[in-house]
Each structure stands twice: as C-alpha cells, then as structure tokens.
C-alpha cells in the first residue's frame, strides 16, 4: 500500500513540474511575443491554469481521499463551489498579506494579485484537492503531530517549501535596480518553482526514512 502511494506521489510531482515547464513552452506556440520576462502576466496566468488543471486531474484519477461516502450530484456541486470560494478567499488573503509585507497598494496591484493567485494554486489547490473544503482538517495538517498519511506529509512539505520559496524570492528584489524585472514577481515565482524541484530531489530519502 505504502509503496504504491509513494510511487503515485512521485509521478504526481513529476507531472506538476512538467505542467510548469509546459506552461512556459506551450503558450509560445499560440501567442506571438511570448516570453517569461516580457509578458510575465500571461505566463502567470498560464502557469496557474496548468498547475490547477493538473492538480484536479490528478485528484480525479488517483482519489487519495476515499473517505467521502455520499456522492450525489448536489453534494459534489456544493463541494466544488465551496472549494472555489475557499480558493478565492485564499487569493485575497494572500494579496492582503503581500501588501502588508510591503507590496505597493495601488501600483502593480494586478501583478500582486496574480502572484497571490499563483501562490494559491501552489498551496491552496493541492490542500483543497486532498483534504476537501474543511478548514479544520487543513489546520490540523499544519501542526506538529497532525499528519496521518504520506499524502498529507507530502502536502505539508510541498506547501511549506512553496511558502519558503516565495519568501526567498523576495531577496533578489533590491539587487535589480533599474532593471524592469524588479517590478515583476518573477523572483518570487522562480523560488516557487525551485522549491518543489528541490523537494523531489530529496524525496527518495525522505520517504524511505519514513517507511
């Protein structure tokens, strides 16, 4: 059971990374003048879109959370709507936190919000997929002894390292004086992408130790 879980996890993460790479490559076929630096906003859209869809597909395929018993359509719809509301709330609260952290209030509001969206897709969406729209369960996962399964464990680590990556991404900002990408959130996103990569690299030992 655990072995298969670990394998599924590994594939899931590779798929996630693949989706990020895809989000860089694919739009360039459809759009003229696409590059990460110049049209960073478009890229943010596409990246967020890809990651979300991959997550959803993964969830539907692997169904790690088998506890849901009722499966009526209305139940599913309300569940989906709830998830959507949670996602929006998390986007807005991330936006507020970024502004509190020093992002400008009016200028670059779109950039900040998009960054909030992408951070949400990296953190909130997997949480919602795995745990459902239950705040208590999510709070539980992120406490000392709250983890019950390997899926939750991976969720915990991925999410935390995404936050740390986004945090680290702020550090190059002062270095880029007079450079246009100072005004983009590229630095953040770079950190965001790197952290799952690093994580996957370390995953083998981690899971081995855990089992």
């Amino acid at each position: 059971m655990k072995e298969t879980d670990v394998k599924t996890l590994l594939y899931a993460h590779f798929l996630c990374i693949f989706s990020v790479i895809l989000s860089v490559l694919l739009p360039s076929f459809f759009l003229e003048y696409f590059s990460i630096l110049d049209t960073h906003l478009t890229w943010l859209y596409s990246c967020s879109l890809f990651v979300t869809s991959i997550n959803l597909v993964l969830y539907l395929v692997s169904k790690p959370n088998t506890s849901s018993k009722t499966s009526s359509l209305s139940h599913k719809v309300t569940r989906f709507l709830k998830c959507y509301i949670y996602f929006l709330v998390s986007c807005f609260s991330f936006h507020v936190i970024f502004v509190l952290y020093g992002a400008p209030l009016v200028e670059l509001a779109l950039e900040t919000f998009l960054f909030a969206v992408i951070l949400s897709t990296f953190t909130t969406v997997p949480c919602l997929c795995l745990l459902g729209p239950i705040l208590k369960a999510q709070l539980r996962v992120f406490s000392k002894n709250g983890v019950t399964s390997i899926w939750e464990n991976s969720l915990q680590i991925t999410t935390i390292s995404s936050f740390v990556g986004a945090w680290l991404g702020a550090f190059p900002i002062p270095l880029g004086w007079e450079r246009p990408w100072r005004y983009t959130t590229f630095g953040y996103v770079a950190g965001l992408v790197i952290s799952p990569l690093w994580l996957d690299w370390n995953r083998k030992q981690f899971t081995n130790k855990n089992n």
Partner: protein
Amino acid sequence: MNPSPKVSVLLFLAWVCLLFYAGITLFTSGFLLTRLELTNYSSCQEPPGPGFLPWGSSGKPGACWMASRFSRVVWILIDALRFDFARPQRSHGPGEPPVSLPFLGKLGSLQRLLETRPHHSRLYRSQVDPPTTTMQRLKALTTGSLPTFIDAGSNFASHAILEDNLIKQLNSAGRRIVFMGDDTWRDLFPGAFSKAFFFSSFNVRDLHTVDSGILEHLYPTVDSGEWDVLIAHFLGVDHCGHKHGPHHPEMAKKLSQMDQVIQGLVARLENDTLLVVAGDHGMTVNGDHGGDSELEVSAALFLYSPTPLFARAPPEEPEVIPQISLVPTLALLLGLPIPFGNIGEVVAEVFSGGKDSQPDGSVLAQASALHLNAQQVSRFLHAYSAATQDLQVTELHRLQNLFSKASANYQRLLQSAPGAEAALQTVITELQQFLRGARAVCIESWARFSLVRMAGGAAILAAACFLCLLAPQWAAPPASPPRPLLLPPAAWALAGATLCAGLSAATGLKLDLVVLGAVAAAGSLLPFLWKAWGSWRSRKALATLLPIPGPVLLLLLLRLATFFSDSFVVAEARATPFLLGSLVLLLVVQLHWEGQLLAPKLLTVPRLGSSTSTGPPRHSGACALRLGVGLLLCTRLAGLFHRCPEETPACHSSPWLSPLASMVGGPAKNLWYGACVGALVALLVAVRLWLRHYGNLRSPEPPVLFVRWGLPLMALGTAAYWALVSGADEAPPRLRALVAGASVVLPRAVVGLAAAGLVLLLWKPVTVLVKAGTGTPRTRTVLTPFSGPPTSQADLEYVVPQIYRHMQEEFRGRLERTTAQGPLTVAAYQLGSVYSAAMVTVLTLLAFPLLLLHVERISLVFLLLFLQGFLLLHLLAAGVPITTPGPFAVPWQAVSAWVLMATQTFYSTGHQPVFPAIHWHAAFVGFPEGHGSATWLPAVLVGANTFASHLLFAVGCPLLLLWPFLCESQGLRKRRQPAGSEAEARVGPEEEEEPLMEMRLRDAPHHFNAALLQLGLKYLFVLGVQILACALAASILRRHLMVWKVFAPKFIFEAIGFIVSSVGLLLGIALVMRVDGAVSSWFKRLVLAQQR
C-alpha cells in the same frame, strides 16, 4: 536583600559594553581618517610671507602672488585615466613581442605632441592619494589637500567644499568658468560656474550620455570665447571600466574618442591658453577603484601649451609627481593665490620660461615659485597645528627649521649678485625637501588605513560577541553569581594597560589612549577566552555554544549578510520590515505548530488523540492571529513614512516627512494638525488606560500624580508648540514677539516636565496603593510565624510571599464585605505590575521630548511604535511558558524581533544612515536663534532625534522579560470568563488563586538577576554582531566603489546606534533594579508597620 548581585550584574554589562566600545574605537581609528577643515582663504593682497617678488607682480594689474603666465585654461578631466592609458608606445626591440592591449597606445595625439613639440608638452605619472573615489579626488584636485572621509568641520548636510580651492580663487579673481560633465561638481561647487552643462553620473552602465553631452557643447563653447577656464569632466572611460573592465574593445573605442577630443582642442588652442589633460584616478584590472593599489593610484597628467613652456625635452620615462601638485602649479600659472590648505608642491620646471630664456633667470623663477609655495605650506602648517594636535610635533619642528634655513638662504641669494646658479639649486632642493616632508607628515596622519588597527578592532568585537553568547551559561544562578566573573577581567585589564603604558614609556612613543583601551579590553577578555577554550577542549557543550534556535539564527544570518551588499544596505529600509514581518509570521506559525494557537480538540485526530495535547493554550487562536496581523499592519503603516536614499532615483520620499509649516495653508494643514494632536492624545490615553487596567493609576504616589496631571500638560505644551511653529508665518505682526518667545519656552518646558517626572519616578518608583486600615486581626494570624525585623536574605525570602498572601487575604476579605469598594481592593494588581508600570511611565516620559524633536507628523509613527511594541510583547508573551521558580529566560526570537523593530522605527521616523539625511532642524527646537558657539547641545539634540528609536527600544528592553508575567493574569481570566470585558474582568473576585504576576520575579531574586543579565547580554549580542558585520563589510569592501557613500556611513550610524542602545539598555536595567530595591524597602516598611 543584599544589593551587591544587582550591582555586579550592572557592572558586568557595563564591562561588556566597554569591550564593544574599545573594539569600535580601535576599528574607527584605523578606518576613518579624520582631518580638520580650515576655512581660511588665501587672497591676493596677503602674500603668504615676507619676500621680494622677482617678477614684479605688484606692479602689474590683475597679477597676484606671481604674474600670470596663461590667461586661459582648458582642463580636460578624464575620469579613471590611468597612467598607462596615456603612455606613449615605444618602438619595440626585435626580441620583444609587441604588446597589444585594448587600452595601450590609443591616445596617439599625446604621443605625437610629445615627439614633435617636446618643449610645449609634458606627460607625468601623477601619484594619487587614496581614497581613489571621484568626489574625494575632485576635492583634492581643487583644494590641493588630502580629503579624508570625515573632513571634520565640514557641513554634513551638503557636499559643497568650504575649504579654499581653485574654483573659489578663480571666482574671486573674476574669471569666467564654464563647466560640462559629471554633476558631482554641482554638489561640490554650487553656483560657482558662469555656465554649466551637468550630466548625471549615476548610471555607471551608461558609457556615452555624459561624453556625448559634453561633445555637443565643447567645441561651440571653445569657439564662442566666452570663458576663461573651461572644465570638461568625461566619465566614459570610468564607466567603461566599471562595466567591461579595461581589457575590453569598448575601452579602445572610448580612448580613441578621447584622443579625438584632445586633437580637436589642440587645433583650436590660442597662444594664451594652457591645455591640461588629467585623470582623477586609475583603475584596477577589473576596472574598479577606491582603494590604494598601484594601478588605482597612478593617473595620467598631460600639459600642453601652444607656446614653449619647458626648458628641456621630456625625459625618457615620465616623471612621477603627486597629483595635488597640479593645484599650486595651476594657481601660479594663472596668477592666482595658492589655495590656503594646499600641501602640494609646484612642478618647478613649468616656471623655467621656455627654451630660449636665460638659464639663470629660469632657475630664479623656479626658486621663487617654490619659495612662495613653501611659504604658503608653512603658513598652513602653522594654522593647522594651532587648531588641532594631530600632526607630529617633533617632525613639525624639524620641518620648520628646514624651512627657515632655506628661506634665509633664498633671501640672501636674492640680495647678492646674480649668477649664483649652484647656490640657487641647493635652495631649490632644500625647499623641495621641506615641501615633501610637510606632505609626508600630513599623509601620515590623514591618508592611511591602518589594517592592524582595523583587524584588532574587529577581533575585539568578535570576541565580545562570543563572550555575550557564552557568559549567560556561566552566570546561570545555580553555578555562580556574576561577581566572580568580574574580578579576573578587571585584574587582567589593569595588567594589560600597565604593560602597554610601560612599553610605550620604555620605547618613548606617545601613549595612544585608543591602543591603551584596546589592550586593556583584550587583556580582560583573556580569562574568558581561556575558559571557552577549556570547555571546548573538554567537548562539554558545543551544542550549547549555539543556543539560538534555527529559524531565528537563519534570519539573523540573513540580516548580517545584507550588510555586505550595497544594494541591500540601501534597501534596508524595506528589508527590515520584511524581516520583521517574517519573524512575526514565524512566531504565529510556531504557536500554531506547537498546538498553542487553537483549542486542542480541533487538532486532535481520533487516532492520535492522546499525544497532541501539549497543555492548554494561553491565548485563543484568534487573539494571536489578530496580534500578528495587527503587527504587520502597523509595520506597513509605519513604512509609509519612508525617506528614500539618494541612490534610488525611482523612489519617492514620503511627503509626510516635511514639517507642517511648509504646507500651504488650507484645510489639509488643519486636518494634519488635528491628526498629529490626535496621535498625541491617543498615546496619552493608551498609556493611562494601560496603567488603569493594571490598577497602577490609583496609587497616591507622586509619579502617578505626575502621570495623571503632568503628562497631559506635556501633551498640551507639545500641541501648542506645533501650532505655533506650523503657523508662525501667519501670525499677525503684533504677536510675533510672543510667538517667538513661546516657541523658545514651550519645548524647554516640556523637557523640564519630562525631567521632573523622571526624577519623581526614580525617587518613588513604587506605585502601589496601601490603605491605612489594614490591621485586621486576620492578617496578624497570617504573619505570626514570623517575628522580629528581617535580618537576613532568607528571612526576607520567607516574609515576602507571606506579605503577599496577606494582601490577598485582605483583598478577599474586603470583597466579601462589599464588592462596591472596587478601588480599595486592587492593591494586589498594582503590585503585580509594579516593574512594568515604572518602565511604561519612563518610556512615555522619554517619548515626549523625543517626539518634540521630530516633525509634527512623526507623532503618528510614535503612536504606531508604542502600539507595535505592545502587540509584539503580547505575541511574544503567548509563546513563553512561565516556569514558576525560575530560571526565567527571554527567548532569542524576542530579542531579535525587538532589535529589528528598533531598526525599522529608525527608518520609519524618516531617517537613513547617510549624513545628508540627518534631521538638522532638530538642533533648533527650543533654540530658534541657534546656539552660538556651543556645539555639544545641538549635537545632543540632533543625536537624540536620529537615535530616538534606538534609545526607546533599548530602555524598554526589560519589558521583554516582564511582559509574560503580566499576561499571566489575563490568561487566567480569559479562561474563566471568556466573554467578560476588560474593565469587568479586572475585578474578578471569584478566582481562587490570585495571579502572582511580576511578584514571581521577586520570589526568586537570583533568577531575576540572572535573567536580567541574560537579557542584557542577548540584546548586546544581537546589536554587537550587527556592528561586527558592518565593520567587516567596511574593511573587506574598503576598495568598493560605494565604500564612502554607503558602507562607511552605515558603520558610523550603526556604531553610534550601538552606543546609544547600550547606554539605554543599562539605564533600563538599572531602572528595573531601582524599582526592585524600592519594592524591597517598601516591604520592609510594611513589615515594621505591621509589627507595631
């Protein structure tokens, strides 16, 4: 209670502070070169000394000390023109391979001129004095002196040169100066040019803007003829060096462009014009400059005159001359007085008068130029050594003798018959010796980094930090009180100092106080290092060597690393709130992680039900979250009052940092005024509410009376002062005198009130209400086990809890009788917050005068500051468990957050660690007419303005220890009456056990002292590593382009901030101890009263 442990804690902390001071002073003495700036000026009418002027200048109109040789000068300054860029390419021998580097041999026009017109042109290798940064070099090239980083006496607010200089002399001689190029000149010589084209020097990646701009104007200006002196400062070569380095094809292009410029100018020169091509400094292999390596300090200097100027052809290898020689040479050639502070030596050969002049006459002319120069330098040395003592006296004497001898010889030769050429040559040699000696003396004291001192200072700082990290463990209460820690260092320090003094006396050197202090500090550190070595050898506790928890350590390291990058130092104003916010979120997340944020039932999973409960949370989750978000919000709001550093052009300073008086009337001004007064009132009300909450406002003691009546009075005075100052211009003329008088009196009155309040508080710090009728029989039964006056420590430790319990009983008894008598029964609460009440009162008293020194709208920031501190303390208290019998400890994250907040407030009160950003107006608060000659008072005022946040946070530092105990009562109450409002919760009578709060500290005096010591050492450590990082950054990057602009000012601000903080810390801890002592004596009196 025996007071000596307290005193020894204070002494120990003071000793650690002294160690840091010694390190800082030693480092500074090696790093910061100081020089006094004299404001004397040379003038035509006043020759530097007696003497016959051979060229008969007094007769000619317009001539000065010497007749002018040229009436016009074109001065081409090519930034970073290293000597070998201009050096002629010699034809190679057959064996030598031809050297082909991008920068070699590109200035072909110089080579052609040197070959074809040897008597008209000359190339020199000019030897530059470090620091080789452009602004310092420009100062040197115009004043003829050695500018150091701190030219004492200069006006820090602007860079304008106040010393006598060439530009000033040209202006007073009525010459028209046209300038084009680097805009540094605008700052240095504001308004000095008749016509100027400035271009920004900021962007070092832009090779062409400045040069193209100059070229656009250069030839039209030359042709127009409306100039006497034309200065063109090209930046392309320097920028090319910074961007690509000298070994890049771009450099060849840039130099070729410069070559064309020179060629074009030479073609247009008229006979009365001198052409000077000079580099201000060189560059390293990588294209940087600022330091003192050979490549940086050798620059090119080229002179060309359309008429013959030199008697001989140029030598094979160009002569080496000091760069500042250009100043006296140019001055005399143009017929100007040599600037007063010049220590350069004239280039004698340009006064030889061309190849066809008499050999005898040419030597005489050289001698007279040198003599004038020597007289001027001698006059300067006199004036300088009269003003300060940093030149060596013996050496000065020797030079003076040399000069008087040469001067006498010269006078004698002038009177005697002509033809004594050999004798004149000796005079010339003597004069040159004098000039070189004088320059050497000055360089000795002005222009050398002392690496030994810098390394020594950094080592002492590092050792002191290490000590701060280790000492708390040795001083832990069961092991030993800190007193034994004190004696060996004192002995060792004395030994070291005596040894040093003896050595210097034996070798006959002048005793340097800085070195003496450093040796004493190092000596006193020795026993500690020995002890540390021992414990390391025994491998006892390497894990305990680094007691800082991981995330906090990471944050600290990140913060230290930022000191090594100029971009980050410039961006620190934004980085500090970011780090503070991170730390706050970390605290909240940590609380959640450990399960203290939410009720355990939420977190338990059925499977793991039993293992998760780690004790009941002391705060409800929403509360800690709210604290965190509130803190972030406050930080963000405070960030709105942000002043931009000069280096970031895209940034806009907050408009709210300007005084209200500068606003143009209208309702906006009134609204702002209202907001500022509102902030004052809010601050006042908040403090009063806080005191009332803990019951300290009900005591009849004088400090409380002062809080009730004096503080509003201070607020009133401040508000009135602001009203007067912001509307001073609108006052009707009749009231002008009144307004002026009031604006003098009001600030002084506020300061006086604050001082009075502080004195009152120190006199009677215990703010506790004791009612007279306490002698009920019931209390006596409690006290019966103890009889007789307390004689020993043990007695006291026994009796104090007794009294406390007695008071509780009393309290309960009264409540049983009547609940309406609330005010009478809150004595226990007052005692529980007696320390923090004194601290908060002191902080408020300090805040008001400091507030007065800032512009009005900063009062909002001060309000935020208190709010932030309050929220942070609450948040920190949530994570600290109270271990009842001790040991008490303040966690590292608390101390780090406190220091970060102090730094953040420094920035949000509109400061920046650069000298032009200092708020000079603070010196005139209460002294609108200035201070006359006194300098210490304005310095204190400006310093208090600049380091207000350091002071406030350092004094308030003990609150970190006290606050968890204050929150204890709240926690208990919160648990019992979750819905009760604060005011009602205050008199919660049905509690079974009363929270002891700060009396817990009193119950364990040893632990209390140790905790205070530990807190102080931790705070000093966090500050100390900052100053260490700054010192290391400044010394490692002493060749960096930005060292004088970013790193050195940062170091100075950090050093002064450290001194202010450490003094504040000592004061804060001393205050807590004073309260402690007063509480003890209060208890004693109570016991005696009970027995009677």
